[in-house]
Protein backbone atom coordinates (compact mmCIF):
# COMPACT_ATOMS: atom_id res chain seq x y z
CA UNK A 1 0.00 0.00 0.00
CA UNK A 2 2.71 2.39 1.16
CA UNK A 3 4.70 1.35 -1.86
CA UNK A 4 1.81 2.13 -4.18
CA UNK A 5 1.27 5.54 -2.49
CA UNK A 6 4.96 6.34 -2.97
CA UNK A 7 4.70 5.29 -6.55
CA UNK A 8 1.68 7.58 -7.07
CA UNK A 9 3.49 10.48 -5.43
CA UNK A 10 6.46 9.72 -7.62
CA UNK A 11 4.26 9.70 -10.75
CA UNK A 12 2.62 12.97 -9.72
CA UNK A 13 5.98 14.66 -9.21
CA UNK A 14 7.19 13.07 -12.43
CA UNK A 15 4.31 14.44 -14.52
CA UNK A 16 4.74 17.89 -12.94
CA UNK A 17 8.40 17.82 -13.80
CA UNK A 18 7.59 16.83 -17.42
CA UNK A 19 5.06 19.66 -17.59
CA UNK A 20 7.70 22.11 -16.34
CA UNK A 21 10.30 20.82 -18.80
CA UNK A 22 7.87 20.91 -21.73
CA UNK A 23 6.77 24.45 -20.79
CA UNK A 24 10.38 25.53 -20.49
CA UNK A 25 11.22 24.03 -23.89
CA UNK A 26 8.26 25.85 -25.48
CA UNK A 27 9.29 29.10 -23.80
CA UNK A 28 12.86 28.77 -25.10
CA UNK A 29 11.66 27.91 -28.61
CA UNK A 30 9.28 30.87 -28.44
CA UNK A 31 12.00 33.26 -27.32
CA UNK A 32 14.37 32.04 -30.05
CA UNK A 33 11.58 32.35 -32.62
CA UNK A 34 10.75 35.90 -31.59
CA UNK A 35 14.43 36.77 -31.69
CA UNK A 36 14.67 35.41 -35.23
CA UNK A 37 11.80 37.63 -36.26
CA UNK A 38 13.54 40.68 -34.88
CA UNK A 39 17.01 39.85 -36.10
CA UNK A 40 17.00 37.21 -38.84
CA UNK A 41 20.74 37.58 -39.41
CA UNK A 42 21.56 36.93 -35.74
CA UNK A 43 23.59 40.09 -35.90
CA UNK A 44 23.41 40.47 -32.10
CA UNK A 45 25.66 37.43 -31.75
CA UNK A 46 28.00 38.35 -34.56
CA UNK A 47 31.02 39.73 -32.76
CA UNK A 48 32.77 40.75 -36.00
CA UNK A 49 30.38 43.67 -36.41
CA UNK A 50 31.56 46.75 -34.54
CA UNK A 51 29.65 47.71 -31.39
CA UNK A 52 29.82 51.35 -32.39
CA UNK A 53 26.87 51.26 -34.81
CA UNK A 54 24.50 52.67 -32.21
CA UNK A 55 21.15 53.78 -33.54
CA UNK A 56 19.83 56.32 -31.06
CA UNK A 57 16.19 56.33 -32.08
CA UNK A 58 14.42 58.48 -29.44
CA UNK A 59 16.79 61.45 -29.82
CA UNK A 60 16.30 61.49 -33.61
CA UNK A 61 12.55 61.33 -33.22
CA UNK A 62 12.50 64.28 -30.83
CA UNK A 63 14.17 66.51 -33.45
CA UNK A 64 12.55 64.93 -36.47
CA UNK A 65 10.64 67.95 -37.76
CA UNK A 66 12.61 70.67 -36.02
CA UNK A 67 12.46 74.20 -37.50
CA UNK A 68 15.45 76.47 -37.02
CA UNK A 69 15.63 80.06 -38.32
CA UNK A 70 12.66 79.42 -40.59
CA UNK A 71 14.24 76.29 -42.11
CA UNK A 72 12.98 72.72 -41.73
CA UNK A 73 16.26 71.23 -40.52
CA UNK A 74 15.81 67.68 -41.81
CA UNK A 75 15.17 68.77 -45.43
CA UNK A 76 16.35 72.37 -45.72
CA UNK A 77 12.94 73.53 -46.94
CA UNK A 78 11.69 77.02 -46.03
CA UNK A 79 9.02 76.96 -43.30
CA UNK A 80 5.85 78.18 -44.99
CA UNK A 81 2.29 77.12 -45.70
CA UNK A 82 2.30 73.64 -47.21
CA UNK A 83 5.74 72.66 -45.89
CA UNK A 84 4.82 69.22 -44.54
CA UNK A 85 2.73 68.38 -47.62
CA UNK A 86 5.81 69.06 -49.72
CA UNK A 87 8.07 67.08 -47.37
CA UNK A 88 5.70 64.11 -47.38
CA UNK A 89 5.15 64.00 -51.15
CA UNK A 90 8.39 65.29 -52.62
CA UNK A 91 11.21 63.71 -50.64
CA UNK A 92 10.36 60.02 -50.87
CA UNK A 93 12.30 59.37 -54.07
CA UNK A 94 14.69 62.29 -54.38
CA UNK A 95 16.36 64.64 -51.97
CA UNK A 96 14.86 68.02 -51.02
CA UNK A 97 18.12 69.45 -52.36
CA UNK A 98 16.92 68.77 -55.90
CA UNK A 99 13.82 70.90 -55.29
CA UNK A 100 15.55 73.71 -53.43
CA UNK A 101 18.17 74.38 -56.12
CA UNK A 102 15.47 74.87 -58.77
CA UNK A 103 13.50 78.05 -59.52
CA UNK A 104 10.38 77.76 -61.67
CA UNK A 105 7.02 79.36 -62.32
CA UNK A 106 3.71 77.59 -61.73
CA UNK A 107 3.47 76.18 -65.24
CA UNK A 108 6.95 74.66 -65.13
CA UNK A 109 6.66 73.26 -61.57
CA UNK A 110 3.43 71.60 -62.77
CA UNK A 111 5.20 70.27 -65.84
CA UNK A 112 7.88 68.78 -63.57
CA UNK A 113 5.17 67.07 -61.49
CA UNK A 114 3.49 65.69 -64.63
CA UNK A 115 6.83 64.35 -65.88
CA UNK A 116 7.41 62.61 -62.54
CA UNK A 117 3.90 61.13 -62.65
CA UNK A 118 4.29 59.92 -66.22
CA UNK A 119 7.77 58.46 -65.94
CA UNK A 120 9.01 58.32 -62.34
CA UNK A 121 6.19 56.60 -60.40
CA UNK A 122 4.95 59.76 -58.64
CA UNK A 123 1.40 59.20 -57.41
CA UNK A 124 -1.72 61.33 -58.06
CA UNK A 125 -1.37 64.25 -55.64
CA UNK A 126 -5.10 65.03 -55.53
CA UNK A 127 -5.93 68.18 -53.55
CA UNK A 128 -2.31 68.31 -52.34
CA UNK A 129 -1.16 69.34 -55.81
CA UNK A 130 -2.35 72.95 -55.39
CA UNK A 131 -0.79 73.15 -51.92
CA UNK A 132 2.54 71.87 -53.25
CA UNK A 133 2.63 74.06 -56.34
CA UNK A 134 1.67 77.15 -54.32
CA UNK A 135 4.41 76.41 -51.81
CA UNK A 136 7.00 75.99 -54.58
CA UNK A 137 5.99 79.07 -56.59
CA UNK A 138 5.86 81.22 -53.45
CA UNK A 139 9.14 80.08 -51.94
CA UNK A 140 11.19 79.04 -54.99
CA UNK A 141 10.18 81.40 -57.84
CA UNK A 142 12.46 82.16 -60.81
CA UNK A 143 14.74 85.16 -60.60
CA UNK A 144 15.98 87.23 -63.53
CA UNK A 145 19.61 86.48 -64.35
CA UNK A 146 19.95 88.05 -67.76
CA UNK A 147 22.45 86.87 -70.33
CA UNK A 148 25.44 86.86 -67.92
CA UNK A 149 25.56 87.68 -64.22
CA UNK A 150 28.08 89.76 -62.29
CA UNK A 151 30.67 87.64 -60.46
CA UNK A 152 29.24 87.34 -56.95
CA UNK A 153 30.55 86.15 -53.60
CA UNK A 154 34.19 86.56 -54.55
CA UNK A 155 36.41 85.53 -51.63
CA UNK A 156 39.37 87.91 -51.84
CA UNK A 157 42.78 86.65 -50.77
CA UNK A 158 46.40 87.79 -51.01
CA UNK A 159 48.09 85.77 -53.77
CA UNK A 160 51.61 84.76 -52.71
CA UNK A 161 54.09 83.42 -55.27
Amino acid at each position, binding site marked *: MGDSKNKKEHLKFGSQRILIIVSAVFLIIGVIGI*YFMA*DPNLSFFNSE*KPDTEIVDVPKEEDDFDKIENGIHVRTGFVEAEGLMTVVNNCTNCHSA*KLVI*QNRMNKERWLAAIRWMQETQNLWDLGPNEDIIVNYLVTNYPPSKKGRRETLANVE*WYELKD
Partner: protein
Amino acid sequence: MHRRNFVKKAVLSSMASAIGIDIVFGTTMPDGYLPLALQDPDPFEMFKKDKQMVVLNDKPWNMEAQAHLLDDKITPNKYMFIRNNGLIPEAIDVSKWTLTIDGESVGQPKTYTLSELKSKFKQHTYQLTLECGGNGRSEFDPPAKGNQWTIGAVSCANWTGIRLRDVLEDVGIKGDAVYIGYHAADIHLSRDPNKEPISRGAPMDKALQDETLLAFQMNGADIPLTHGYPLRLIAGGWPASVSGKWLQRISVRNKVHDGEKMTGTAYRVPCKPVAPGAKVPEEEMCIIESMPVKSLITYPKSGAMIAKGKKLNIRGHAWAGELEVTKMEYSIDFGSTWQRCRVEKPVNRLAWQHFSATVDFPQEGYYEVWGRATDSNGKSQPMLLPGWNPKGYLNNACHRIAVKVS
Protein backbone atom coordinates in the same frame (compact mmCIF):
# COMPACT_ATOMS: atom_id res chain seq x y z
CA MET B 1 14.54 52.34 -40.57
CA HIS B 2 12.69 54.00 -37.70
CA ARG B 3 9.82 51.59 -38.02
CA ARG B 4 12.24 48.70 -38.16
CA ASN B 5 13.96 49.80 -34.99
CA PHE B 6 10.63 50.26 -33.32
CA VAL B 7 9.69 46.67 -34.18
CA LYS B 8 13.07 45.50 -32.99
CA LYS B 9 12.67 47.38 -29.69
CA ALA B 10 9.13 46.11 -29.18
CA VAL B 11 10.17 42.53 -29.80
CA LEU B 12 13.20 42.93 -27.58
CA SER B 13 11.09 44.20 -24.69
CA SER B 14 8.67 41.28 -25.04
CA MET B 15 11.70 39.00 -25.10
CA ALA B 16 12.95 40.72 -21.97
CA SER B 17 9.68 40.25 -20.12
CA ALA B 18 9.54 36.62 -21.20
CA ILE B 19 13.05 36.01 -19.90
CA GLY B 20 12.55 38.26 -16.94
CA ILE B 21 15.69 40.33 -17.35
CA ASP B 22 16.67 43.26 -19.57
CA ILE B 23 18.73 42.61 -22.65
CA VAL B 24 21.50 45.00 -21.78
CA PHE B 25 22.92 45.66 -25.22
CA GLY B 26 19.66 45.19 -27.09
CA THR B 27 19.43 48.80 -28.25
CA THR B 28 22.93 48.71 -29.69
CA MET B 29 22.18 45.71 -31.87
CA PRO B 30 23.76 46.36 -35.24
CA ASP B 31 21.30 46.76 -38.04
CA GLY B 32 22.39 44.38 -40.78
CA TYR B 33 19.61 45.34 -43.13
CA LEU B 34 20.92 48.45 -44.91
CA PRO B 35 24.49 48.55 -46.21
CA LEU B 36 26.26 50.47 -43.49
CA ALA B 37 28.59 52.30 -45.86
CA LEU B 38 25.63 53.92 -47.63
CA GLN B 39 24.19 55.25 -44.38
CA ASP B 40 27.33 57.25 -43.73
CA PRO B 41 26.19 60.85 -43.49
CA ASP B 42 29.55 62.24 -44.63
CA PRO B 43 29.67 62.04 -48.43
CA PHE B 44 33.23 63.41 -48.55
CA GLU B 45 34.46 60.51 -46.42
CA MET B 46 32.19 57.99 -48.15
CA PHE B 47 33.30 58.91 -51.68
CA LYS B 48 36.84 60.06 -50.75
CA LYS B 49 36.16 63.59 -52.00
CA ASP B 50 37.81 66.83 -51.01
CA LYS B 51 35.79 68.93 -48.55
CA GLN B 52 35.72 71.83 -51.01
CA MET B 53 33.59 69.80 -53.43
CA VAL B 54 29.99 71.05 -53.54
CA VAL B 55 27.07 68.69 -52.89
CA LEU B 56 24.13 69.57 -55.14
CA ASN B 57 21.98 66.58 -54.31
CA ASP B 58 22.20 63.62 -51.93
CA LYS B 59 19.47 61.41 -53.40
CA PRO B 60 20.67 60.71 -55.98
CA TRP B 61 24.25 61.82 -55.29
CA ASN B 62 25.41 64.80 -57.32
CA MET B 63 28.56 66.70 -56.42
CA GLU B 64 30.68 69.17 -58.37
CA ALA B 65 34.16 70.65 -58.26
CA GLN B 66 35.17 74.31 -58.25
CA ALA B 67 37.45 75.69 -60.95
CA HIS B 68 40.57 75.88 -58.77
CA LEU B 69 40.12 72.24 -57.66
CA LEU B 70 40.53 71.10 -61.27
CA ASP B 71 44.11 72.39 -61.57
CA ASP B 72 45.69 68.90 -61.86
CA LYS B 73 46.56 67.81 -65.38
CA ILE B 74 44.97 64.44 -64.63
CA THR B 75 41.88 64.77 -62.42
CA PRO B 76 42.24 62.71 -59.21
CA ASN B 77 39.16 61.05 -57.71
CA LYS B 78 38.92 63.59 -54.89
CA TYR B 79 38.14 66.37 -57.37
CA MET B 80 35.98 64.37 -59.79
CA PHE B 81 32.33 65.39 -60.02
CA ILE B 82 29.62 62.83 -59.26
CA ARG B 83 26.49 62.69 -61.39
CA ASN B 84 24.23 59.79 -60.46
CA ASN B 85 20.72 59.36 -61.84
CA GLY B 86 19.67 56.55 -59.52
CA LEU B 87 20.86 54.81 -56.39
CA ILE B 88 24.31 53.20 -56.26
CA PRO B 89 24.12 49.37 -56.60
CA GLU B 90 24.06 47.85 -53.13
CA ALA B 91 25.79 44.47 -53.30
CA ILE B 92 28.42 44.10 -55.99
CA ASP B 93 29.99 40.64 -56.31
CA VAL B 94 32.85 41.07 -58.77
CA SER B 95 33.37 37.31 -59.10
CA LYS B 96 29.82 36.99 -60.49
CA TRP B 97 29.81 40.21 -62.54
CA THR B 98 29.09 39.66 -66.23
CA LEU B 99 28.65 41.76 -69.35
CA THR B 100 26.14 40.61 -71.96
CA ILE B 101 26.12 41.88 -75.52
CA ASP B 102 22.66 41.50 -77.06
CA GLY B 103 20.17 43.44 -79.18
CA GLU B 104 18.55 43.20 -82.62
CA SER B 105 21.85 43.64 -84.42
CA VAL B 106 23.95 40.86 -82.86
CA GLY B 107 23.97 37.40 -84.42
CA GLN B 108 23.96 35.58 -81.09
CA PRO B 109 23.99 37.27 -77.65
CA LYS B 110 27.17 36.59 -75.72
CA THR B 111 28.05 36.92 -72.03
CA TYR B 112 31.52 37.52 -70.62
CA THR B 113 32.76 37.40 -67.04
CA LEU B 114 34.84 40.32 -65.86
CA SER B 115 37.99 38.18 -65.82
CA GLU B 116 37.30 37.00 -69.38
CA LEU B 117 37.06 40.61 -70.53
CA LYS B 118 40.33 41.46 -68.78
CA SER B 119 42.26 38.47 -70.13
CA LYS B 120 40.80 38.00 -73.60
CA PHE B 121 41.12 41.52 -74.97
CA LYS B 122 44.04 43.94 -75.23
CA GLN B 123 43.99 46.71 -72.64
CA HIS B 124 44.41 50.42 -73.42
CA THR B 125 44.71 53.56 -71.31
CA TYR B 126 43.50 56.98 -72.45
CA GLN B 127 43.03 60.27 -70.67
CA LEU B 128 39.43 61.22 -71.47
CA THR B 129 37.37 64.34 -70.85
CA LEU B 130 33.98 63.64 -69.33
CA GLU B 131 31.67 66.62 -68.96
CA CYS B 132 28.06 66.49 -67.82
CA GLY B 133 25.70 67.72 -70.56
CA GLY B 134 24.14 70.05 -67.98
CA ASN B 135 27.40 71.61 -66.76
CA GLY B 136 26.71 75.35 -66.48
CA ARG B 137 22.93 74.90 -66.26
CA SER B 138 22.68 77.29 -63.28
CA GLU B 139 23.29 80.30 -65.54
CA PHE B 140 20.33 79.88 -67.90
CA ASP B 141 17.47 82.39 -67.80
CA PRO B 142 14.69 81.38 -67.55
CA PRO B 143 16.14 78.69 -65.31
CA ALA B 144 16.13 75.08 -66.46
CA LYS B 145 15.00 72.19 -64.29
CA GLY B 146 17.56 69.81 -62.85
CA ASN B 147 20.77 69.90 -60.87
CA GLN B 148 22.08 73.45 -60.97
CA TRP B 149 25.67 72.76 -62.05
CA THR B 150 27.96 75.79 -62.16
CA ILE B 151 31.28 74.96 -63.84
CA GLY B 152 32.54 71.90 -61.98
CA ALA B 153 30.89 68.94 -63.73
CA VAL B 154 33.93 68.10 -65.84
CA SER B 155 36.92 65.80 -65.33
CA CYS B 156 39.78 64.32 -67.28
CA ALA B 157 41.14 61.14 -65.69
CA ASN B 158 43.06 58.20 -67.08
CA TRP B 159 40.77 55.30 -67.93
CA THR B 160 42.04 51.78 -68.52
CA GLY B 161 40.04 49.07 -70.18
CA ILE B 162 39.38 47.25 -73.40
CA ARG B 163 37.98 48.63 -76.62
CA LEU B 164 34.22 48.20 -77.02
CA ARG B 165 34.98 47.62 -80.70
CA ASP B 166 37.12 44.53 -79.92
CA VAL B 167 34.29 42.98 -77.89
CA LEU B 168 31.64 43.81 -80.53
CA GLU B 169 33.85 42.22 -83.21
CA ASP B 170 34.20 39.10 -81.05
CA VAL B 171 30.41 38.88 -80.70
CA GLY B 172 29.68 39.62 -84.36
CA ILE B 173 27.59 42.60 -85.38
CA LYS B 174 25.04 42.64 -88.21
CA GLY B 175 25.21 45.21 -91.00
CA ASP B 176 22.03 46.96 -89.83
CA ALA B 177 23.52 48.09 -86.48
CA VAL B 178 22.75 51.76 -85.79
CA TYR B 179 23.29 52.44 -82.11
CA ILE B 180 24.46 50.86 -78.87
CA GLY B 181 22.53 51.26 -75.62
CA TYR B 182 23.79 50.35 -72.15
CA HIS B 183 21.99 48.76 -69.21
CA ALA B 184 23.38 48.95 -65.71
CA ALA B 185 22.98 47.82 -62.11
CA ASP B 186 21.97 51.12 -60.50
CA ILE B 187 18.54 51.29 -58.83
CA HIS B 188 15.67 53.59 -59.79
CA LEU B 189 14.91 56.28 -57.18
CA SER B 190 11.43 54.83 -56.70
CA ARG B 191 13.08 51.40 -56.14
CA ASP B 192 10.81 50.03 -58.88
CA PRO B 193 12.83 47.05 -60.19
CA ASN B 194 11.17 47.41 -63.60
CA LYS B 195 12.57 50.90 -64.11
CA GLU B 196 16.08 51.88 -65.13
CA PRO B 197 17.45 55.18 -63.82
CA ILE B 198 19.31 55.76 -67.08
CA SER B 199 20.04 53.73 -70.21
CA ARG B 200 21.75 55.82 -72.86
CA GLY B 201 24.16 55.08 -75.67
CA ALA B 202 25.86 56.27 -78.83
CA PRO B 203 25.76 55.73 -82.59
CA MET B 204 27.98 52.95 -84.00
CA ASP B 205 30.62 55.45 -85.23
CA LYS B 206 31.24 56.56 -81.65
CA ALA B 207 30.97 53.02 -80.26
CA LEU B 208 33.69 51.80 -82.63
CA GLN B 209 36.25 54.54 -81.91
CA ASP B 210 39.66 53.54 -80.52
CA GLU B 211 39.05 55.56 -77.36
CA THR B 212 35.59 54.14 -76.54
CA LEU B 213 36.39 51.78 -73.68
CA LEU B 214 34.88 49.23 -71.37
CA ALA B 215 36.92 50.48 -68.44
CA PHE B 216 37.72 48.77 -65.17
CA GLN B 217 40.36 51.17 -63.89
CA MET B 218 40.49 54.91 -63.25
CA ASN B 219 43.88 56.54 -62.63
CA GLY B 220 45.51 53.12 -62.24
CA ALA B 221 43.19 51.72 -59.57
CA ASP B 222 39.78 50.04 -59.49
CA ILE B 223 37.08 52.53 -60.52
CA PRO B 224 35.61 54.08 -57.33
CA LEU B 225 32.14 52.70 -56.50
CA THR B 226 30.28 55.93 -57.25
CA HIS B 227 32.04 56.27 -60.61
CA GLY B 228 30.90 52.88 -61.89
CA TYR B 229 32.82 50.02 -60.24
CA PRO B 230 33.50 47.42 -61.50
CA LEU B 231 32.83 48.21 -65.18
CA ARG B 232 32.04 51.45 -66.98
CA LEU B 233 31.53 52.46 -70.59
CA ILE B 234 33.71 55.48 -71.38
CA ALA B 235 32.93 57.71 -74.36
CA GLY B 236 35.10 60.83 -74.00
CA GLY B 237 34.04 64.16 -75.50
CA TRP B 238 30.32 63.33 -75.38
CA PRO B 239 27.88 64.13 -72.56
CA ALA B 240 29.18 62.06 -69.64
CA SER B 241 25.79 60.32 -69.43
CA VAL B 242 26.88 58.25 -72.46
CA SER B 243 29.59 56.76 -70.24
CA GLY B 244 27.30 54.35 -68.39
CA LYS B 245 28.39 53.20 -64.93
CA TRP B 246 27.98 49.74 -63.33
CA LEU B 247 27.71 48.28 -66.81
CA GLN B 248 25.97 44.89 -67.18
CA ARG B 249 24.65 44.80 -70.72
CA ILE B 250 25.11 46.51 -74.06
CA SER B 251 22.38 46.19 -76.66
CA VAL B 252 23.36 46.67 -80.28
CA ARG B 253 20.27 48.25 -81.79
CA ASN B 254 18.99 48.46 -85.36
CA LYS B 255 17.51 51.88 -84.50
CA VAL B 256 18.41 54.80 -82.24
CA HIS B 257 18.44 53.41 -78.69
CA ASP B 258 15.20 54.24 -76.87
CA GLY B 259 16.28 53.62 -73.27
CA GLU B 260 15.62 55.86 -70.27
CA LYS B 261 16.84 59.44 -70.85
CA MET B 262 17.39 58.86 -74.59
CA THR B 263 13.90 60.06 -75.50
CA GLY B 264 11.70 63.08 -74.76
CA THR B 265 13.76 66.12 -73.80
CA ALA B 266 16.55 64.39 -71.86
CA TYR B 267 20.03 65.15 -73.16
CA ARG B 268 18.47 66.87 -76.16
CA VAL B 269 18.50 70.46 -77.40
CA PRO B 270 16.23 72.19 -79.92
CA CYS B 271 17.24 71.15 -83.46
CA LYS B 272 16.76 74.80 -84.48
CA PRO B 273 17.52 77.82 -82.23
CA VAL B 274 14.62 78.99 -80.03
CA ALA B 275 13.85 82.11 -77.98
CA PRO B 276 14.51 81.94 -74.22
CA GLY B 277 11.60 80.23 -72.47
CA ALA B 278 10.11 78.82 -75.68
CA LYS B 279 8.08 75.63 -75.62
CA VAL B 280 9.70 73.09 -77.91
CA PRO B 281 7.78 70.02 -79.14
CA GLU B 282 9.61 66.75 -78.46
CA GLU B 283 9.98 65.95 -82.14
CA GLU B 284 11.98 69.17 -82.55
CA MET B 285 14.54 68.16 -79.93
CA CYS B 286 17.80 66.55 -81.14
CA ILE B 287 20.18 64.26 -79.22
CA ILE B 288 23.39 65.94 -78.01
CA GLU B 289 26.48 64.29 -79.46
CA SER B 290 29.94 65.92 -79.23
CA MET B 291 30.26 68.53 -76.44
CA PRO B 292 31.15 72.13 -77.47
CA VAL B 293 34.50 73.91 -77.07
CA LYS B 294 35.14 75.09 -73.51
CA SER B 295 37.88 76.06 -71.06
CA LEU B 296 38.48 76.67 -67.36
CA ILE B 297 41.01 78.91 -65.64
CA THR B 298 42.13 76.65 -62.79
CA TYR B 299 44.90 78.90 -61.42
CA PRO B 300 44.74 81.23 -59.65
CA LYS B 301 41.53 80.78 -57.69
CA SER B 302 39.10 83.63 -58.35
CA GLY B 303 39.60 86.53 -55.88
CA ALA B 304 43.40 86.89 -56.11
CA MET B 305 44.83 90.20 -54.88
CA ILE B 306 48.26 91.09 -56.27
CA ALA B 307 50.62 94.02 -55.92
CA LYS B 308 50.84 96.63 -58.68
CA GLY B 309 53.61 95.83 -61.14
CA LYS B 310 53.52 92.08 -60.46
CA LYS B 311 52.84 89.70 -63.31
CA LEU B 312 50.14 87.07 -62.88
CA ASN B 313 50.69 83.55 -64.18
CA ILE B 314 47.43 81.91 -65.18
CA ARG B 315 46.77 78.35 -66.34
CA GLY B 316 43.97 75.90 -67.00
CA HIS B 317 42.53 73.39 -69.43
CA ALA B 318 40.59 73.59 -72.68
CA TRP B 319 38.66 70.90 -74.53
CA ALA B 320 36.39 70.64 -77.57
CA GLY B 321 34.39 67.40 -77.55
CA GLU B 322 35.41 65.34 -80.58
CA LEU B 323 37.62 68.16 -81.84
CA GLU B 324 40.87 69.74 -80.75
CA VAL B 325 41.48 73.18 -79.29
CA THR B 326 43.62 75.14 -81.73
CA LYS B 327 43.68 78.54 -80.01
CA MET B 328 43.41 79.77 -76.43
CA GLU B 329 43.15 83.45 -75.49
CA TYR B 330 42.60 85.61 -72.45
CA SER B 331 41.17 89.11 -72.00
CA ILE B 332 41.46 91.52 -69.06
CA ASP B 333 39.22 94.20 -70.60
CA PHE B 334 35.92 92.31 -70.99
CA GLY B 335 36.69 91.14 -74.51
CA SER B 336 37.88 94.43 -76.06
CA THR B 337 41.27 92.85 -76.70
CA TRP B 338 42.43 89.26 -76.56
CA GLN B 339 45.93 87.87 -75.96
CA ARG B 340 47.16 84.42 -76.92
CA CYS B 341 47.88 81.72 -74.34
CA ARG B 342 50.33 78.86 -74.83
CA VAL B 343 48.27 75.71 -75.39
CA GLU B 344 49.64 72.17 -75.39
CA LYS B 345 48.58 69.35 -77.69
CA PRO B 346 46.34 66.74 -76.03
CA VAL B 347 48.13 63.63 -74.68
CA ASN B 348 45.68 61.65 -76.78
CA ARG B 349 42.50 62.37 -78.73
CA LEU B 350 39.59 63.48 -76.44
CA ALA B 351 41.90 64.57 -73.59
CA TRP B 352 41.78 68.16 -72.38
CA GLN B 353 44.66 70.47 -73.26
CA HIS B 354 46.62 72.64 -70.86
CA PHE B 355 47.11 76.36 -71.40
CA SER B 356 49.12 79.02 -69.62
CA ALA B 357 49.90 82.72 -69.94
CA THR B 358 51.57 85.57 -68.07
CA VAL B 359 49.28 88.53 -67.54
CA ASP B 360 50.37 92.16 -67.14
CA PHE B 361 47.94 94.65 -65.64
CA PRO B 362 48.29 98.27 -66.82
CA GLN B 363 47.21 99.92 -63.55
CA GLU B 364 45.57 99.32 -60.17
CA GLY B 365 41.98 98.23 -60.07
CA TYR B 366 39.39 95.48 -60.39
CA TYR B 367 39.89 93.08 -63.28
CA GLU B 368 38.32 89.97 -64.63
CA VAL B 369 40.49 87.54 -66.54
CA TRP B 370 38.34 85.84 -69.16
CA GLY B 371 39.45 82.74 -71.07
CA ARG B 372 38.31 81.83 -74.58
CA ALA B 373 39.08 78.63 -76.48
CA THR B 374 38.63 78.04 -80.21
CA ASP B 375 38.21 74.59 -81.76
CA SER B 376 39.62 73.13 -84.97
CA ASN B 377 36.44 74.13 -86.82
CA GLY B 378 37.01 77.77 -85.87
CA LYS B 379 34.21 77.92 -83.29
CA SER B 380 34.94 79.90 -80.11
CA GLN B 381 33.34 80.07 -76.70
CA PRO B 382 30.72 82.86 -76.41
CA MET B 383 31.14 85.49 -73.70
CA LEU B 384 27.37 85.50 -73.15
CA LEU B 385 25.25 82.45 -72.55
CA PRO B 386 24.86 80.33 -75.67
CA GLY B 387 21.41 79.54 -77.10
CA TRP B 388 18.77 78.92 -74.45
CA ASN B 389 17.36 75.40 -74.39
CA PRO B 390 14.58 73.93 -72.22
CA LYS B 391 16.82 71.60 -70.18
CA GLY B 392 19.78 73.94 -69.81
CA TYR B 393 22.47 71.94 -71.60
CA LEU B 394 25.71 72.95 -73.33
CA ASN B 395 26.57 76.20 -71.55
CA ASN B 396 30.09 76.76 -72.82
CA ALA B 397 30.27 80.49 -72.08
CA CYS B 398 33.75 81.83 -71.23
CA HIS B 399 35.01 81.21 -67.71
CA ARG B 400 36.38 84.21 -65.79
CA ILE B 401 38.11 84.95 -62.51
CA ALA B 402 38.19 88.15 -60.45
CA VAL B 403 41.55 89.82 -59.74
CA LYS B 404 42.41 93.00 -57.78
CA VAL B 405 45.63 94.90 -58.36
CA SER B 406 46.65 97.39 -55.65
